[in-house]
């Protein structure tokens, strides 16, 4: 009490005497009221009330005799809501939540849950990590495309050195652009018009310089210039959304084959993703549809690189999957493609010098075909654009590749470590038991092979389930005994099981070994010696949830 008095004096600026008086008075008032049988409520604090406890039976701790505890009064304190909240501030953010399982399942599921959690946890962690790595890779991809487009306008002419690599750059971007275009069709016009003017000038200046021997014949069709600008505009404009594109690209993948079929059939250029005919004079869609076939060759080298790179890189997936369709569509339109273009479906590496040649040829061919060739020259021009890119592009392109490789290796290493760490049993089984257990695919008991309860989580799903299933199926014969236990009043098979075999559920094996003595597992005859068998350690692995569950199922069978 004195402490309270002190605090009051300090904080409330009361005289010591008056504070003490007050507290004393307060307490005595409360006491008196309680003695009267009244409850005392202090608002903002709580209520003190006298509580009557009924007499109840109990046991004297010393003698063991039964005793009656008489009824008595007790002072109970119920805090006010204010007080509760103030005191509970550290935990105030927490709230009660519902859990899915119903009450009946608690008993059975709980012991298993602990084991299962161990199994599920690492996989969940992996999934999260995989997702993170995926996101990282996408970001890296986005970064690289960003850098490329940024540098485009700045770099000086070093075309001769890196025309091939630069060719590679475009397809990635173009592919990305294609996807984006699918989704943002309406925005195209606005963007194009806006950026067209900006870009037209630098591009125009670059073009004459850049024109290498290969690109000479491709001479810019004056009419088409603005469209090429458009393409570049798109390239630059959309590189910002490269990340989005990759995600959307995946979504679009399913629709791809159909779209290309349509392109093939009609000979008309149909806007991918929209499945509707578009006016051939409409610049953007043609651009889109035709660029794809053109750049598919350039894709080849990119594909190789991307295939080396992790499966997780979406652009690679995108390109690879699209290439078959592209090449098909390409072949159906002779003006677009020279027959000698050695393009294979899964992106076999083309020699790099082939690419410019074929492009040249196609261009020269298509120039003759007037209306259809609207967009063809754009490819070379985009090539031109990229051929202005300097060495940095190559470096930038290569840099992400090894990052991808490293991350994939890291992921694999993680998987291996986790597998070894969490499932040490796997490696044992793989080495020793496979030969022995194969012939043991035994008669089917009622307990059909308990399918690995969580097959996805096992790191070596093929190896482990085989051995475990066979073990469970094998007929059990207990010839060796490791101990005997006399059956006394109050002892239980499950206690023996826990002691000798590691888990109470494994009593079923003890029961099986002593079937001649025990008729009813619930009613084991007293005074008999129970032999504890030596059980296959794979069956009585305490840490293995399948073992526990299998034993449980056996017990259900026996207890009917």
């Amino acid at each position: 009490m004195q402490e309270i008095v002190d605090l009051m004096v300090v904080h409330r600026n009361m005289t010591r005497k008056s504070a003490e008086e007050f507290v004393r008075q307060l307490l005595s008032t409360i006491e008196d009221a309680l003695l009267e049988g009244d409850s005392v409520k202090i608002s903002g604090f709580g209520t003190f009330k006298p509580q009557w406890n009924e007499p109840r039976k109990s046991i004297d701790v010393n003698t063991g005799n039964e005793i009656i505890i008489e009824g008595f009064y007790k002072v109970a304190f119920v805090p006010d809501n204010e007080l509760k909240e103030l005191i509970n501030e550290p935990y105030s953010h927490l709230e009660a939540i519902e859990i899915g399982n119903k009450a009946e399942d608690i008993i059975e599921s709980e012991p298993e849950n602990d084991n299962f959690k161990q199994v599920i946890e690492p996989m969940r962690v992996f999934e999260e990590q995989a997702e993170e790595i995926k996101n990282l890779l996408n970001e890296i991809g986005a970064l690289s495309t960003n850098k490329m487009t940024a540098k485009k306008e700045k770099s000086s002419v070093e075309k001769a050195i890196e025309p091939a690599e630069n060719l590679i750059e475009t397809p990635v971007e173009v592919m990305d652009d294609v996807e984006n275009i699918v989704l943002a069709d309406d925005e195209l016009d606005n963007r194009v018009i806006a950026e067209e003017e900006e870009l037209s000038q630098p591009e125009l200046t670059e073009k004459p310089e850049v024109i290498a021997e290969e690109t000479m014949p491709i001479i810019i069709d004056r009419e088409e210039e603005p469209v090429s600008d458009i393409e570049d505009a798109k390239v630059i404009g959309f590189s910002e959304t490269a990340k989005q594109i990759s995600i959307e690209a995946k979504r679009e993948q399913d629709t791809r084959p159909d779209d290309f079929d349509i392109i093939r059939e009609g000979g008309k250029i149909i806007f991918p993703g929209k499945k509707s005919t578009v006016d051939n004079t409409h610049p953007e869609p043609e651009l889109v549809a035709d660029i794809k076939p053109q750049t598919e060759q350039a894709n080849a080298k990119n594909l190789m690189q991307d295939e080396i790179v992790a499966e997780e890189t979406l652009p690679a997936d995108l390109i690879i999957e699209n290439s078959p369709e592209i090449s098909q569509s390409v072949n159906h339109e002779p003006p677009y493609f020279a027959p000698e273009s050695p393009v294979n479906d899964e992106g076999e590496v083309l020699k790099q010098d082939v690419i410019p040649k074929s492009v040249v040829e196609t261009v020269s061919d298509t120039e003759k075909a007037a209306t259809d060739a609207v967009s063809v020259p754009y490819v070379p021009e985009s090539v031109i654009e990229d051929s202005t890119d300097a060495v940095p592009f190559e470096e930038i392109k290569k840099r992400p590749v090894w990052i991808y490789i490293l991350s994939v290796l890291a992921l694999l290493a993680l998987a291996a470590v986790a597998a070894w760490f969490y499932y040490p049993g796997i490696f044992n089984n793989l080495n020793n038991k496979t030969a022995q257990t194969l012939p043991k695919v035994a008669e089917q008991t009622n307990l059909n092979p308990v399918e690995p309860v969580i097959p996805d989580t096992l790191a070596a799903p093929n190896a482990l389930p085989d051995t475990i299933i066979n073990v469970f199926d094998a007929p059990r014969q207990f010839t060796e005994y490791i101990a005997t236990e006399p059956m006394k009043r109050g002892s239980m098979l499950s206690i023996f099981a826990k002691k000798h075999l590691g888990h109470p559920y494994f009593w079923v094996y003890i029961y099986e070994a002593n079937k001649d003595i025990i008729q009813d597992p619930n009613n084991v005859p007293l005074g008999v010696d129970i032999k504890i068998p030596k059980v296959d350690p794979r069956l009585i692995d305490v840490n293995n949830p399948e073992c526990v569950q299998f034993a449980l199922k056996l017990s259900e069978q026996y207890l009917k």
Partner: protein
Amino acid sequence: MLEAFSHTCIDRLKEDNSIGFQGFGTLEVRKKEERISVHPVTKIRTLIPPKLVVSFKQSNILKEKLNSQQ
């Protein structure tokens, strides 16, 4: 005055977790662990978060006074 008293008490409880009143009892802050509770009718399992509560334990003097009287 009462307000002052209760506020002081609360502040004290937050810091020291316990206040003793001689001849009366002790007010104590106790932590309740989180638990899963099952609604008996709907069988819905709920996870109740941990919390801090104030509990009062009467002193023996008070107890005897109370019981001798009634």
